[in-house]
């Protein structure tokens, strides 16, 4: 099977390539020279041809919570969002803290997922932060990173040992940064709106304390810690300073933390309840500055499906999180490239491909000859309206229903095969 994608703007940051040309796919991998005869021609005139996008922060809810999302439905949502590789978080039931659960996830993905699904393993047993999960065995079973996402190891000594151990087995540690004492039962950003509404505040310092801790431990252990869903100005400042000194620390940003502020919670709509919470415009500005100068170098969704009946409850009783896979590319293109002009398109693609691939040492995120033909075709100027009713996800918890966005994926190709097209 030979495919030629003609006349697109090929942007392959891993190879510093940005040019109009043809991309050849032969037998599921990127080819180097044009075949004598092709089976399929895709006209990409006016489109961007990018390495398949990678989202390293996704909740696929299986095993255990299949009514919210399955590995199969989450993968279809990913494909519809332009993603060819997604990394699932371990807060499932059972928790992904044993090789058998990892094997189950990989089997389910192999059976039903139309994109590459990569598992992570827990740092601590049952995400309890008390004792180490079998990290070595998890890595042997194929996890690409360790994280207690949704939870945060509070014991600095345990976290230190986890990072040291992760260094030995060669995977990075991803951390949901939340100091439990400082945050308490916090629900929304601590500030004007929490004061006005009488909702328990989630202070910025509750994230920053753990980001600072992680910087110290990354330095102490000389190993990569990646801070998930960075949401505050102080976190950006800490990361910037540490990265300038060469500390192996990094951070990702989620679209909702740029597109929305804490003002959105004023009607107690639980589709604006996420963890970390929506923050103020000054925090948003700091995140944009962090993206502009490379302090934050990975984009991710924190795709967190929850059923309608679970979200349609009192604000404090609703679970945190929103859908993300089908809106994140559009939101980031719209906000970062078009509206704020924080970065240009090639850099956005870098943050969705080569950067996460390097962080997790994945064989992905490039259009190098011989690489698996994971390709995303993007129309960066296409104006469209997101309709959650058309979502591939099993859930509908999003604040972005009806949003008009500029830019989206139009075709998603995994190992040479089109798995979704507009």
């Amino acid at each position, binding site marked *: 099977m030979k495919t030629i994608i003609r006349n697109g703007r090929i942007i392959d940051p891993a190879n510093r390539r940005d040019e109009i040309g043809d991309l050849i796919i032969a037998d599921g991998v990127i080819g180097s020279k044009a075949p004598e005869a092709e089976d399929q021609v895709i006209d990409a005139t006016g489109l961007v041809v990018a390495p398949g996008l990678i989202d390293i922060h996704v909740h696929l809810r299986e095993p255990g919570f299949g009514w919210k999302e399955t590995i199969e439905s989450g993968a279809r949502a990913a494909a519809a969002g332009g993603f060819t590789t997604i990394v699932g978080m371990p807060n499932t039931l059972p928790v992904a803290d044993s090789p058998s659960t990892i094997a189950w996830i990989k089997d389910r993905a192999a059976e039903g997922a139309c994109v590459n699904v990569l598992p992570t393993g827990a740092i601590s047993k049952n995400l309890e932060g008390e004792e180490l999960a079998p990290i070595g065995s998890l890595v042997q079973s194929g996890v690409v990173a360790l994280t207690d996402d949704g939870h945060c190891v509070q014991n600095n000594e345990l976290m230190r040992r986890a990072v040291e151990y992760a260094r030995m087995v060669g995977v990075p540690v991803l951390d949901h940064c939340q100091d439990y004492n400082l945050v*308490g039962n916090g629900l929304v950003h*601590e*500030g*004007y709106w*929490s*004061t*006005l*509404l*009488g*909702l*328990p505040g989630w202070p910025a310092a509750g994230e920053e304390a753990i980001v600072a801790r992680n910087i110290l431990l990354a330095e102490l252990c000389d190993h990569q810690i990646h801070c998930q869903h960075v949401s505050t100005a102080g976190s950006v400042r800490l990361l910037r300073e540490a990265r300038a000194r060469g500390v192996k620390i990094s951070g990702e940003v989620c679209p909702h933390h740029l597109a929305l502020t804490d003002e959105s919670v004023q*009607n*107690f709509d639980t589709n604006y309840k996420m963890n970390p919470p929506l923050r103020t415009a000054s925090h948003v500005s700091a995140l944009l500055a962090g993206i502009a100068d490379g302090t934050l170098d990975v984009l991710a969704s924190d795709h967190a499906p929850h059923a309608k*009946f679970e979200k*349609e*409850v*009192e*604000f*404090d*009783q609703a679970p945190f999180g929103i859908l993300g896979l089908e809106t994140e590319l559009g939101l980031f293109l719209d906000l970062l490239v078009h509206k704020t002009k924080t970065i240009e398109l090639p850099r956005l693609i870098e943050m969705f491909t080569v950067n996460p691939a390097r962080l997790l040492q994945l064989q992905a995120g490039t259009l190098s000859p011989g690489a698996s033909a994971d390709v995303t075709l993007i129309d960066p100027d296409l104006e469209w309206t997101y309709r959650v009713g058309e979502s591939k996800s099993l859930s509908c918890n999003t604040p972005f229903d009806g949003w008009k966005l500029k830019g989206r994926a139009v075709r998603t190709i995994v190992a040479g095969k089109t798995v979704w097209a507009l």
Partner: protein
Amino acid sequence: MTADVRWNRKDLLGIRELSAEEITFILDTADAFKQVGTRDVKKVPALRGKTLVNFFVEPSTRTRTSFELAATRLSADVINISAATSSLTKGETLKDTAKILEANHADIIVLRHSSAGAAQFLAERVRASIINAGDGAHEHPTQALLDLYTIRARRGAIAGLHVAIVGDILFSRVARSNIFALLKLGARVTLVGPSTLVPRAFEQLGVSVSHRLDEVLPTVDVVNLLRIQHERQRKEYFPSIGEYIRLFGLTKARAKLLRPDCLIMHPGPINRGVEIDSDLADGVQSVILDQVTNGLAIRMAVLYLCGGISAR
């Protein structure tokens, strides 16, 4: 002017969304109902044939009783549901419970709930009138209305007065509703209490924040003391009741700093000897029992106005 023109809300969810005119209109309406309580026959037929559900997910005696009496005096049929007797304990959601009440033709649901936003949540989902009787630390609109009514009855007007609210402001829905109402009607508000319970963020709401009660007391027309609930709170907010009294309790010595015509208020239940000296609570400056009596008139007015809208 008639109710049709000046009131068009089926729900009373909070003070924040009300205009000064709407607040004044409720107070004026309560004036009429207050007189009903002085008659031999303390009952009017305004809500005859209507069903009111007192849905108290969080415990309350004072507010629930006040609403029940108010509804009874308006000739409504009243049902009381508490958390323990509701299906919420069996895992039914708030939405489903409310839908069941509605299916039983409840016209007005008075909701007390521990979650901020719970009243608005219901109002968006059922046709019945929703009256917020306290939602988490968010709002307690009828308490603020009865407080304003009491102040207005004693002082003639709200505008230009200086009101101190003392105590646990951070966790207080009474404080928030009072702040919104007092500011809308032109009063000046100073919040007093430990910095942990009266964070400076409140200044963004348009009030002053002080941690020195002695400096504030001589300047105020009203001092509203909130209940201190050390036993229920996380202990890190202040070290002890003893220290609280030393810094923020309205003791007899401190009361000497008050102007003679300064009103002493408390939403209750009172911790005698903690936020307020026991004798002061019963003293000439105290209007604590007026607040209770006025609460009945305010709740009759609110039920009458909102119940009248839901009928259409």
